């Protein structure tokens, strides 16, 4: 019942729908009592040979009226109650989405996307079921059950009612127990299914390896084994599922048997008429559903409650990175200065960055090099405030980053991430991501700067080609260049290329870098790269290792310093130098 209390805010908000829905349900439950009663009355008249045409027509009219009324009323409560439930899932879905858009990357590190998807789909479905079928089941089983029992006890025989109700609680208990078992075995079957899914996914991703090693047959055999597991787990589900109908039929059978045996006794000693006995058995038929429903209700509520807990927990997660009070409502412009004593990722013990001190004049280019995992990307992520909680400060245009509104700060930055992500939309829409109303010309200019324009023209639909997960597949280099164009379209104050040229060849890299140099006069650019050629022209180069600046300077000064940079540079040149006799 807890879940109904927790959903109280929604019931209150939709009280008109719920109150009218419940009232209609109660009324339908009453109307349901009419047909069995009419059957009994007519049967008695037939038995006693007292039926007249007038009487028959009267009762048939009653049946027609109640039937039509029930039809209309049943339609309306469905709209009210089920409709509200759909509305609830819509509201919660929007809330979740809104919440997701506010969460920072540390949230996405804690929660896997698959899990978040599951919350937004399965959990919402369970909650919707609670607010719809749950409410219906609760009200309907109580009211129909209650009314039928009352009708049986008061209009026919309370003794007979008690007798035939004896086996009924067993029905509720057993079906509820089956429900729990079913849920558990179903979960196992789902697990087997999802590992089959993973297996399939893996085989398809690794199809080249399988084909190369000629292991198709063995892989199909492996698939057969896993699919057999799915079958076995599902047979367990089928067995539990198949317990329902026989159990119901036995228990209800006993109930019928009792009511006929004892009912017959009461008919014989004149306490009942035969028509009443027939009404009684028809009423008994009406009791099956509320009993089943009661068992079912607990399962629905249990699931709904667990789901609602999970969804609320998600919604309660605090937004970590937000605007400070009195944040400046202007786009930052100017020099960038890192005065960073230390930064540690939440949940980690080892600091990721230590003693990062440097400043970069507006319009300069910063190059950052270092091994994978040295902290290059982290350094950049702090600038766009994806993470916070460092010791020290980062100044942009003379103010700490936190002094600006987050939105304004990010307006100044064009970020090209390492893992290029494109949306399932056209190339043009992807490039114009920051400004959907950008003109064709603006889009093409950005694409030309990123050296992807020619490639795009080769695509089947040019700029209108759909890319992303559900579109045509592009090479890594093409995706990287579209990501670069996307960042360039906003003509940002600061452009960040986070190892974004790794998948393009040296020639394309060179072309992109030189077009950037020409077109970003007076604007700041930050580049991280494994290839030294990409950062060779930077005004300041930082060599980072294990979160610390090991070397700094320009290409020339670093070469003169004769440290890691030079060693790396020489390494990349070694063979070349041998060839050219030390030039």
């Amino acid at each position: 019942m807890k879940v109904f209390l927790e959903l109280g805010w929604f019931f209150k908000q939709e009280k008109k729908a719920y109150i009218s829905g419940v009232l209609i349900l109660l009324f339908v439950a009453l109307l349901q009592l009419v047909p069995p009663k009419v059957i009994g009355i007519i049967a008695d008249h037939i038995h006693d040979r007292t039926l007249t045409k007038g009487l028959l027509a009267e009762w048939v009219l009653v049946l027609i009226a109640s039937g039509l009324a029930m039809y209309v009323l049943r339609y309306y409560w469905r709209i009210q109650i089920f409709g509200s439930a759909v509305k609830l899932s819509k509201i919660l879905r929007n809330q979740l989405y809104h919440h997701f858009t506010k969460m920072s990357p540390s949230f996405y590190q804690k929660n896997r996307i698959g899990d978040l998807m599951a919350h937004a789909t399965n959990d919402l479905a369970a909650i919707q079921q609670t607010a719809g079928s749950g409410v219906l089941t609760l009200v309907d089983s109580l009211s129909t059950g209650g009314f039928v029992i009352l009708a049986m006890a008061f209009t026919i025989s309370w003794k007979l009612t008690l007798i035939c109700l004896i086996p009924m609680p067993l029905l509720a208990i057993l079906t509820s127990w089956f429900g729990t078992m079913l849920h558990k075995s179903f979960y196992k079957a789902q697990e087997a299914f999802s590992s089959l899914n993973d297996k399939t996914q893996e085989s398809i991703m690794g199809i080249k390896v399988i084909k190369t090693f000629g292991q198709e047959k063995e892989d199909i055999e492996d698939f057969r084994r896993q699919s057999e597991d799915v079958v076995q787990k599902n047979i367990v589900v089928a067995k539990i599922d198949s317990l329902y109908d026989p159990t119901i039929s036995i228990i209800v059978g006993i109930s019928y048997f009792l009511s006929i045996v004892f009912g017959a006794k009461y008919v014989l000693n004149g306490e009942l008429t035969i028509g009443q006995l027939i009404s009684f058995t028809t009423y008994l038929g009406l009791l099956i559903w509320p009993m089943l429903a009661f068992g079912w209700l607990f399962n629905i509520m249990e699931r709904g409650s667990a789901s609602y807990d999970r969804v609320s927990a998600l919604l309660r997660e605090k937004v970590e990175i937000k605007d400070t009070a009195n944040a400046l409502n202007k786009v930052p412009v100017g020099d960038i200065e890192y005065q960073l004593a230390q930064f540690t990722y939440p949940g980690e013990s080892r600091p990721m960055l230590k003693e990062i001190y440097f400043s970069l004049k507006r319009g300069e280019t910063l190059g950052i090099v270092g091994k994978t995992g040295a902290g290059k990307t982290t350094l950049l992520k702090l600038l766009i405030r994806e993470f916070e909680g460092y010791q020290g400060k980062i100044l942009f245009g003379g103010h700490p980053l936190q002094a600006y509104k987050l939105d304004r700060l990010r307006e100044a930055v064009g970020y090209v991430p390492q893992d290029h992500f494109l949306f399932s939309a056209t190339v043009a829409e992807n490039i114009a991501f920051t400004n959907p109303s950008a003109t064709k010309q603006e889009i093409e200019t950005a694409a030309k700067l990123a050296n992807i324009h020619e490639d795009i023209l080769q695509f089947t639909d040019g700029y209108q080609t759909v890319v992303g997960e559900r579109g045509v597949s592009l090479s890594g280099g093409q995706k990287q260049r579209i990501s670069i164009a996307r960042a360039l379209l906003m003509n940002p104050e600061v452009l960040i290329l986070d190892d974004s040229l790794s998948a393009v060849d040296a020639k394309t890299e060179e072309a992109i870098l030189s077009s950037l140099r020409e077109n970003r006069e007076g604007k700041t650019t930050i580049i991280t790269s494994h290839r030294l050629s990409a950062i060779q022209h930077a005004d300041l180069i930082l060599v980072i290792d294990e979160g610390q600046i090991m070397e700094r300077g320009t290409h020339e000064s670093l070469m003169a310093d004769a440290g890691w940079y030079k060693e790396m540079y020489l390494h990349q040149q070694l063979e070349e130098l041998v060839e050219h006799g030390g030039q």
Partner: protein
Amino acid sequence: MEEKTQLSNGEQRRVLVRLLSYAKPHKKEIAIAFLLLLLTTVGDIVLPLLVKVFIDDYLTPRKLDFTPLVILGSTYMGIQFVKAILLFYQLVAFQRIALYIIQQLRIDVFAKVQSLGLKYFDKTPAGSIVSRVTNDTEAIKDMFVTVISTFIQSGVFLAGIFISMFILDIKLGLLCVVLIPILMLVIVLYRKYSSRYYLDMRERLSQLNAKLSESLQGMSIVQVFRQEKRLRAEFAAINEKHYDAGMKNIKIDALLLRPAIDLIYIFGLIIVLTYFGITSFDTTVKIGVIYAFINYVDRFFEPVNQMMMRLSLYQQAIVAGSRVFKLLDHEELAPAQEEEQKQEFAIEEGKIEFNNVSFSYDGKRDVLKNISFTANPGETVALVGHTGSGKSSIINLMMRFYEFDRGEISIDGQSIRRFSKQELREKLGLVLQDPFLFYGTVKDNIRLHQKTMTEEQVEEAAKFVQANAFIEKLEKGYNHKVVERGATFSSGQRQLIAFARTIAANPKILVLDEATANIDTETEEAIQTALAKMRKGRTTIAIAHRLSTIQDADLILVLHQGEIVERGTHQELLSQRGLYHKMYLLQNGLSQQVEDPIH
């Protein structure tokens, strides 16, 4: 996301027939399940008749002999119990058959996928192939498990009820037949409208989920480019449409589902009561018969309700089935080898020749133009060129991932088409640019499905490529768990494992697609040493991104837009001062050393 989901009636029927044909191998089990079904149905029909006998022969005439009543009562309860037990086995039997049918279908689809050429995988996103194999077959499973068995069970039950009604009272039985067309009308109407609205809702739901999934994946992009508001609005709009579709479904269900069936039930009651009422004006009517009829009419509608609730599942399954069959009928198979040959050709030397090979993926634009070269046994041929120059296509043809139609590729003087698949797989070893690791252990990943390979062989292979150093440092060594796609290993480590895998198979010819980015200098040195060792004694075709790694190649082919524009050894090419030379200077950050490095 999915193709258009509307199917004509004819198509629907064909899909259904084809799905049902999967039941053929299970004839015996189906016959048993049917027998059980018939028995339980007989039980269902007989029980109300026993009550009728009791009411008419004993209760109404007040003839209450003890023995016959005990017999009657125990028969009633006996049938009740036997029926329940048979019912359990019958239900399980139908589900079991359905599950095995689906397993077979699944295996067929999976095997089919394995037999398709890489062309298909290029065009089709992995997610949608996975969907065909698992989710679509799952939808068909729902149909077999719930729809078909419900339809059969309900159908038999309805038939039983009608037979019994006819036996009790022919005239009334005939009158009750009127109910059938009315029910049919409701079912037809419901099918017509619900299938439309239901599909619409599914479509909206899949849009909603696609949007959500994509937003979550790209959230950092959304945030860094400040597009949260726009995406919220877009999501809310899709959500609203999904809500509307949901409401339409509720309305159509409320109009034509349970409420409508309950109304027809009342109509059935009226027929029965009126008939008996009118009959009773002239003759006596036995109350037991009324009881039995009321009881039958009562139970008549539950199976109908069941069937109608399953209709949407049926629709889904048919759509899923048509998608699955489309895949099963797909004809872009992997390139076949010439079968009718007298002798088995074997690769002995490993001499590779490309003779005037041209190739196009789409049949329009040639990605390879007149490629000719020879790799003598034990030699290394390196392919260089910028992205899209055709390097990978050469390897794709060499590995028989794609069929070529112009020119000839031969090994040891025989067309590559004439070797058995087995022979090619054994003698050709490919190392991919992005080495794919499977879920399992390190050992599993080195030996793959070759069960006969001993642990020593696995370790030897690892040692050969110097992967043993890092593997032995792992917590469980060769039994260390590899998570999905080997995400816990660095790309260099993954590369080394892939090397070990290839070396363990001991190929005669090595085909290498060199990894480029993101490998640290330290790992890279290990990789270079391993590569040099692997190449020894093997003919090697290698794609090189870093020119420094192939300086000792016997032949370097420089590709540009599908053509070989330069060829020779490293030294020769450098002295030619052509494209290779420029690429070399650029890659070494020495572009200032040539006057005009970029055309």
